[in-house]
């Protein structure tokens, strides 16, 4: 297994009720697989998880990207700084 950190920001934090979790995922889990695992854990966040932006180690990541060992993954809505 691969222990990763998952951070939630803004509406994703509201949907999951979490800021930061540690999670064991199978080796070579893609982002889409992580979303499926999280949808099981936070059933009412399923819609939000479909639409979330994702980063891996502080770069944008996409459904097919494989999560590397010990990664810092973050989930958040479209950015709105300025």
């Amino acid at each position, binding site marked *: 297994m691969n222990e990763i950190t998952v*951070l939630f*920001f*803004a*509406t994703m934090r*509201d949907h999951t009720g979490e800021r930061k979790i540690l999670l064991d995922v199978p080796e070579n889990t893609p982002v889409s697989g992580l979303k499926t695992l999280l949808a099981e854990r936070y059933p009412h966040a399923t819609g939000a998880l479909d639409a979330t*932006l994702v*980063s891996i180690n*502080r*770069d*944008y990541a*996409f459904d097919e990207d494989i999560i590397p060992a010990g990664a810092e993954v*973050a989930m*958040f*809505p*479209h*950015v*709105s*700084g*300025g």
Partner: protein
Amino acid sequence: MPEFPTIFSITEDELNLDELLAQITLTSTGAACFFTGMVRGATQRDGLPPETEYLEYEAYTPMAEAKMGQVADEIRQRWPTVEGIAIVQRIGRLYPQTPTVLIACTAAHRDTGVFEAARYGIDRLKEIVPVWKKEIGPDGGTWIEGGYTPQPGE
């Protein structure tokens, strides 16, 4: 090739434009363009009379600072004449008329891209730098969502 200063940060402190300008002014610098954004208190929207008490800004700070560095790199690639670059986003509880963000670019002359570079900087910051804001008014809070989806490589 001189060392050109690049400043990027997420901060909870008040922005200090004069100090930031001094930090990106070299002896060869003759022109600077700044963009600053402020919290609007009265926002006209759908004919409603909304009133913002304050905005609550948050950031994914290490990624935000990395993406600000990327925006600065993109500016230097497009406008190689740009000398200094400052990109600062303030976070926390920010009230109307408070400057929240600053993009500043300096160059030897005003005709070599400082206006375009600052404009590009604020546009890109609003596309790829992970910062979010929630508008707090008389009826509670509303998250404001941007409309840009970053592509692979951004």
